[in-house]
């Protein structure tokens, strides 16, 4: 309940100690190589499999709980069914003459292997994205991510973009999420005592029950922000003023090593992508090396 962004784990692993900017860069790098094309489906599954193995190793180093990873995946079942319907059962547009049918129905409607693989492929990518974000959120306090974000936005100051204000806003929002969740919980309990049933009832009744939560929550948000702005003002906060920073981000030896490793991995996968896309034959490893026909 307390942490909507995946729970920060109480360990102090190498990954926990890494600079949050490096971690965010790594996240972006890994996500990009997740989404690169690597030739035919067999190829893609092989390469993404290797990538997934790397991610699992990182998860192990970061002491990410595999159970919480699985519980995160639970919510994906619906998505998987949805993908299957779209890619497999909805007739494919465009040229399907080169596709491999699994079954052909008497009326000529066909289900293809390609559809099945495509949905699996998208699903696989999603699983990896979840694993990656889980690693980030379980090893990095939300505040450090805002510091990193502020740092990434720094160049925008040249065009007078108020990066300080943005990052203050984000960090205040993050700071108040647990407080507001707690409050929402209390309000719901109070309304339940007045006979509201948040689970049952028809749509109109549900809308009514939700207003009994939203209205008090909003009104408390307003009064909180009112008081908060007074408190900030009293302590001399000026949004556009020059401020020093208590938190400093320092790059250590480990950070550089990590950055190099990430760079190598990204470079390796990009090279593979280049080969599979541009060098004849490389779009089908299985055929190239073992002579197995795959698509």
């Amino acid at each position, binding site marked *: 309940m307390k942490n909507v962004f995946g729970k920060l784990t109480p360990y102090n692993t190498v990954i926990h100690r890494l600079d949050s900017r490096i971690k965010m860069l790594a996240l972006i790098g890994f996500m990009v190589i997740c989404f690169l094309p690597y030739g035919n489906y067999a190829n893609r599954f092989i390469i993404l499999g290797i990538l997934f193995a790397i991610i699992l190793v990182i998860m192990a180093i970061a002491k990410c709980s595999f159970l919480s990873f699985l519980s995160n995946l639970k919510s994906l079942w619906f998505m998987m069914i949805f993908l299957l319907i779209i890619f497999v059962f909805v007739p494919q547009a465009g040229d399907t003459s080169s596709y491999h049918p699994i079954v052909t129905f008497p009326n000529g409607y066909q289900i293809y292997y390609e559809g099945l693989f495509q949905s699996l492929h998208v699903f696989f990518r999603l699983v990896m994205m979840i694993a990656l974000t889980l690693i980030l959120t379980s090893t990095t306090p939300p505040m450090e991510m805002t510091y990193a974000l502020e740092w990434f936005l720094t160049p925008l100051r040249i065009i007078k973009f108020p990066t300080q204000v943005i990052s203050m806003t984000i960090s205040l929002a993050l700071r108040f999420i647990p407080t507001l969740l707690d409050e929402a919980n209390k309000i719901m309990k*109070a309304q339940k*005592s007045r*006979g509201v049933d948040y689970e049952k009832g028809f749509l109109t009744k549900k809308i009514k029950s939700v207003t009994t939560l939203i209205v008090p929550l909003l*009104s408390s948000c307003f009064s909180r922000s009112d008081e908060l702005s007074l408190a900030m003002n009293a302590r001399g906060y000026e949004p556009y003023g020059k401020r020093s920073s208590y938190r400093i981000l320092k790059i250590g030896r480990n950070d550089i090593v990590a950055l190099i490793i990430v760079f190598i991995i990204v470079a390796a996968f990009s090279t593979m992508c280049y080969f599979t896309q541009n060098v004849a034959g490389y779009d089908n490893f299985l055929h190239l090396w073992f002579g197995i026909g795959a698509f």
Partner: protein
Amino acid sequence: MQVSCNNVTFVYDKKDPNHYDALKDINLEISKGEFVALVGKTGSGKSTLVQTLNALIKPTSGYTKVDYFIVTSDKKLFKEKMKELSEDEVKKNKKLYLLRKKVGLVFQFPEYQLFSVTVLKDVMFGPTNFNLTEEEAKKVSIEALKSVGIDESYFNKSPFELSGGEKRRVAIAGILASDPDILVLDEPTAGLDPDGKKEIMEVIKKVHEKGKTIILVTHDMDVVMNYAKKVVVLNDSKLVKITTPHELFDSDDIEKYSLEIPTLYKFKKLLVKKGYKKDLSNVYDFNSLIEVLGK
């Protein structure tokens, strides 16, 4: 017995490795028409205990019984208890709102639960949820508002326009309008000025005089001294004492449970310690103190 807690134990979030028992083996009986104060320092489990009375929290083991309603998450125990009840009572046990109507629970800072466009409509919300018709609800709500001293001229105002003390009285009226047999209040005087406190406590006293059972969770020992007839002390999730306010404040273990002593009793203790000649055993409020001292 109207209310009984039988070996009530509650564990928050069992899966969490640092989970703790919020309630440990609580046994308590309260009969109809009592005025009970539940005291103990923050985190002693008072608020959790009262939430088992209307099934917002269900004991992990043991059960709370309110008339014929059984509250527990122990399914086997629940079934067993159902066997002791009549068919009609078993049926009623399935309808949670009947229990919530019977036990009116006023949370801390109840003014945060107001949401309707007008004061009257807000108060009517509870009764309509408990299946009263619009007309009936209006009638009982007007009565409830009058009983908490809210004037008719306020009925069509927005609840957000009222002062803090007024809001709180409206919120209490919102519970009273459902005509509960048992009124449970969690820190009803918190954050109010002395006048506001007195007003609220007089309202509660009047409800008690009508024969309702009052269960009050509070830190305010002056309130306990002046209003409660029975005190239940919780400490570290356990029930440690059932006594009268007079005996509690006179005893020496009050400090053991980090409860504050009303100034009157502090003074009385000082006098006893310093060997005051007159008999102070009948001193339980200001007038009786002056009576003895002035002789």
